[in-house]
């Protein structure tokens, strides 16, 4: 923090909301999901997360030091959060050099190109993830089966995610039969995290605990996660009520894929989400809508990543049109 920001007219009330404290809070909120992923995917999850965090921090330091030649900003922990989030949306059996490449893209392309923390229009972790996803579709869509703590790194035994199973059999079998397939996890398993998927997206319960923690600590407000999840429930529920043999129920859409991880941790990124609460709700509805459109009508099984990036790009527009009333401004009572 530059010293300029500390100079203000009295009275001085010093808030504890520094970047470091907020980032620490996010990391604490991510901890339960990390525990769940280690329990189900084994030490590979620790390796991937470690490599992602380490390379994000190193790349940020190197770019800051040698290319931008600015004050070192690694200590604000935002690179650590980016690293953890990037690792959380990768499968555990991904080659490590891809993790390093993803970190380079996330930090170098997603964040530092635009001028560092606070200037990036897109969520850096998602930029890294989508870059990898478009570049290496094979490696990014082979998901290891959860086998417990002793699952080896690069375990060859892979399976499809629940959303992938639905997309694969879509149109050939009614949804009730797809749901009854052996490889499809039950709802309890989905809720606890026993299913194939990216590191951090599997444990719905753990992610919800993280959300409650962040709400309690006032790190995020309820607007974005609730509007995203609400929109998904409304759309999925509507489709399900109209045609239950072709559409999965809302609970399925809620528990599978990266929806909770995205809604709670990625869409709420301060830099890339709107500032006013009305703006946040519009932004959340947009993400929920795009997610369901991509999940239901496109070739991709999962759409949260694209939905968040697309709405990130709309954020400046939302900020421009939805301005909170200034104090003392005349209110038009019609």
């Amino acid at each position: 923090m530059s010293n300029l920001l500390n100079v203000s007219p009295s009275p001085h009330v010093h808030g504890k909301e520094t970047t470091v404290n907020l980032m620490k809070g996010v990391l604490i909120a991510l901890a339960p999901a990390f525990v769940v992923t280690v329990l189900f995917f084994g030490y590979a999850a620790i390796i991937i997360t470690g490599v992602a965090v380490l390379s994000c921090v190193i790349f940020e330091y190197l770019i800051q030091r040698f290319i931008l030649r600015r004050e070192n900003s690694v200590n604000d922990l935002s690179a650590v959060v980016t690293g953890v989030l990037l690792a959380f949306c990768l499968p555990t059996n991904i080659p490590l050099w891809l993790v390093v490449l993803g970190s380079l893209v996330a930090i170098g392309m997603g964040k530092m190109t635009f001028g560092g923390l606070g200037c990036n229009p897109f969520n850096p972790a998602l930029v890294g993830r989508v870059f990898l996803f478009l570049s290496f579709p094979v490696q990014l869509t082979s998901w290891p089966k959860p086998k417990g703590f002793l699952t080896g790194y690069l375990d060859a035994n892979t399976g499809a995610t629940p959303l992938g199973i639905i997309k694969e059999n879509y149109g050939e079998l009614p949804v009730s039969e797809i749901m009854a397939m052996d490889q499809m996890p039950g709802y309890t398993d989905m809720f606890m995290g026993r299913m194939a998927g990216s590191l951090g997206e599997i444990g719905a319960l753990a992610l919800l605990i993280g959300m409650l923690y962040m709400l309690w600590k006032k790190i995020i407000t309820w607007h974005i996660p609730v509007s995203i999840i609400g929109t998904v429930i409304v759309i999925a529920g509507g489709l399900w009520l109209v045609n239950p043999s072709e559409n999965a129920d809302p609970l399925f859409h809620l528990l599978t894929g990266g929806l909770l991880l995205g809604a709670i941790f990625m869409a709420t990124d301060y830099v890339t989400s709107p500032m006013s609460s009305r703006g946040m709700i519009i932004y959340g509805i947009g993400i929920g809508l795009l997610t369901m459109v991509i999940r239901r009508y496109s070739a991709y099984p999962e759409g949260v990543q694209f939905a968040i990036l697309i709405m990130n790009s709309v954020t400046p527009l939302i900020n421009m049109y939805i301005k909170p009333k200034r104090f003392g401004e005349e209110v038009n009572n019609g």
Partner: protein
Amino acid sequence: MNQLNNFTKGFIRENPVFILFLGLCPALGVTTTAINGIGMGFATTFVLIMSNIVISLIKNFIPANVRIPSFIVVIASFVTIVELTMAAFMPSLFDSLGLFIPLIVVNCLVLGRAEAFASKNNLITAVIDGLSMGLGFTLALGLLGGVRELFGDGSILGWKFIQGDGMLIFILSPGAFLALGYLIMLSNKVKK
């Protein structure tokens, strides 16, 4: 104007793609490989030189009100020559460039040089300008295609030296924007 200066301006100082941002549509569209980029560059160079010659010769006879349509007619005739020649002698390149060959007609680089330069300068200067701009365009497209081919496919000019798949994103259109952005950054660094 100093003719040497006129010739060198197209490469870095006034590079049509990196500095003037002209002709970005083919620059982003066809540069999946270096060969495609260079082929497109030379086709454009030919059209640029020929249209600059003709326009600089007939500039005094064209009424100002209809100059743009007249330029387009001149450009379109040379593009047709390029298109037919390429279809006859380089069918594989013609296939991979596809629609972008007839689209040279509306390339803002060609029309831009005709309007801004050839119609105001004498024959020799206009020819050198066309050559300079065309070679600068070829250089930019070759570089862009080379970078995309290198990262997207692991090969240079079709010679594959990294086995397996490259980063697919560089073959797809987002890769064109990314590569162009970083090349512009580098060229700005070089220009300083």
